[in-house]
């Protein structure tokens, strides 16, 4: 999983090529790697915006108005569904399960930190700040979030896999190229 993490940090989301490369580097079956990647909701298999809003809509937040938060995000950005990204590549969202900060509900995770006591106005503010390039660092101790998203991920042809000792080259038979987006990701029941 840390290897998939690295790939996702670099590309913004996990492409089939990236998963194959991870499998090759770790000498694992590509199907196994994809199985792991599709299991966990923090691995993105389709592109996400540079600022991805993880809005909690589980019970404690729902009781305190998370539906309104999601609605305002959709109105303000024009993004209507969790798979969409704004044309400028900046914004996307998903509704997530409890993030463990229920005393501050409704809340969400954005740019590697939690945002509490959300109101529609706060959503407007957060979006405006990010459009203007104003984002507070998560905390003094935090590592700066890496730039990501925006440009399309490099294709295997453009960046040949680096040589690794002892690692077999990815064989097309073992990893048939798959259409991006056509993954077997678990359907979000609330999506």
């Amino acid at each position, binding site marked *: *999983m*840390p290897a998939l*993490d690295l790939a996702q940090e670099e590309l913004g989301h996990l492409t089939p090529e990236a998963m194959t490369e991870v499998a090759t580097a770790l000498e694992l079956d590509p199907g196994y790697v994809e*199985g*792991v990647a599709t*299991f*966990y*909701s*923090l*691995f993105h298999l389709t592109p996400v915006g540079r600022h991805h809003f*993880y809005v909690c*809509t*589980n*019970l*404690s*937040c*729902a*009781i*305190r*108005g*998370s*539906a309104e938060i*999601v609605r305002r995000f959709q109105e303000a950005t024009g993004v209507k569904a969790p798979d969409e990204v704004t044309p400028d590549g900046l914004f996307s969202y998903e*509704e*997530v*399960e*409890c*993030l*463990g*900060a*229920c*005393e*501050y*509900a409704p809340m969400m*995770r954005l740019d*590697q*930190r*939690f945002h*509490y006591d959300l109101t529609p106005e706060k959503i407007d503010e957060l979006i405006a700040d990010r459009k203007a390039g104003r984002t507070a660092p*998560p*905390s003094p*101790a*935090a590592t700066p979030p890496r730039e990501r998203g925006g440009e399309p991920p490099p294709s295997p042809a453009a960046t040949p896999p680096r040589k690794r000792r002892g690692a077999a080259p990815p064989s097309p038979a073992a990893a048939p190229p798959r259409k991006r987006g056509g993954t077997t990701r*678990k359907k*979000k*029941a*609330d999506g």
Partner: protein
Amino acid sequence: MAELRGSSGDAPQNLLTRWFGTPNLHTLDVYESKAGGYTALRKALFDMAPADITNEVKTSGLRGRGGAGFATGVKWSFINRDAPGPKYVVVNADESEPGTAKDRYILENSPHMVVEGILIAAYAVGANQAWVYIRGEYDEPRRMLVEAIDEARAKGYIGPRPMGKDYPLDIQIYRGHGAYICGEETALLESLEGKRAQPRSRPPFPAVKGAWGRPTLLNNVETLATVPTIINMGGAGYAKVGTAKNPGTRLLTVSGNVRKPGVYEVEIGKTFRHVIMELAGGPPEGRKVKVFWPGGSSAPVLPESMLDVTTDAEALAAAKSMGGSGGVIVMDDSHCVVKAAYRLLQFYAHESCGKCTPCRIGQDWAVRTYERILANEGSQIDLDILRSVSDGLQNGRSLCGLGDSGGWVIDSTLRHFRDEYEDHALRHECNVGRVMAHA
């Protein structure tokens, strides 16, 4: 850090949260100089034999604070300290039970308390290596824990000779990636090994064959954070707090329709009326408590008439519920129970790992039945289906508790709020005005 919402200060029940809110408590210096930190580790390493530590925890009567409530000292004693080869301590910091935020509260306020507890536990069970499995969304708690471990390592409390004792101890952090199922101990171990998090069948229990097939002790963050207090107070001293069968204090996360949501440390045995109406300030003006989940979304619901149930495991079992993770979710009379149950079943259906058929199929079936009922297409047949799906999910038909949890939501809401279900399914009406999110 955001404003503290919860317990702090020197109230008698604040055994863990006494110093929370103290500036820079998260640094080793302040934790040691102000909060008396690492005295328990020193005492454990130099004044106690490993078996004494386990006995002290047994005497304290501490029960796991993760959800199952198993006796911690007994769990420790299952690990054969003298077995050759590596043994591990794995810390469950994958807090993701809906309505629960207490591990985050501890990690953000006093990460060294957790580090100290881990080191004591590792020494007691004969492990040299501990892993903290922390959920991926906990960015800030993870940073603070990393800093705390680095500080402790620099100071020589973690390393080949902690505090000069010839007993190597190390702690590593492993980041989860968003899967509720990882709160289940064997699924967590699978995930730690880099696999899809699907529960293992037991036996063998992790104490015999856990991480990488080695004897492994798994404990929750709050459980381990309590250990230094027990060593300092003595097991017998700690056992005087709380009820005889369920001693101590625990951190209850109160959320939902209350005026002062927060993480409150409570002496076990107090009533939920005290927790919800006094500590958390009760429901908003003009509203009444309708229903509450006493221990996370998986704990069967209790209606307002049962506010006087106490917070100990025995009283909750008698009320056909459980203490679970200590997440108290309060809903007032402006919300519909059927819609809330629907939202939770969506959650369980989404988080089912798919390994066991009753859970994989049953949760999805329940969601679709709720959808029919809430679309005003329900009938008596749908209520019967819910009943039978609920039975099919429960009683150990799945390897872990996720299946049962969904069943309990259906079962307990049907038991206490049958009329609301009938309003929806038979009369196609909702007598509660406000429509809740996504339902």
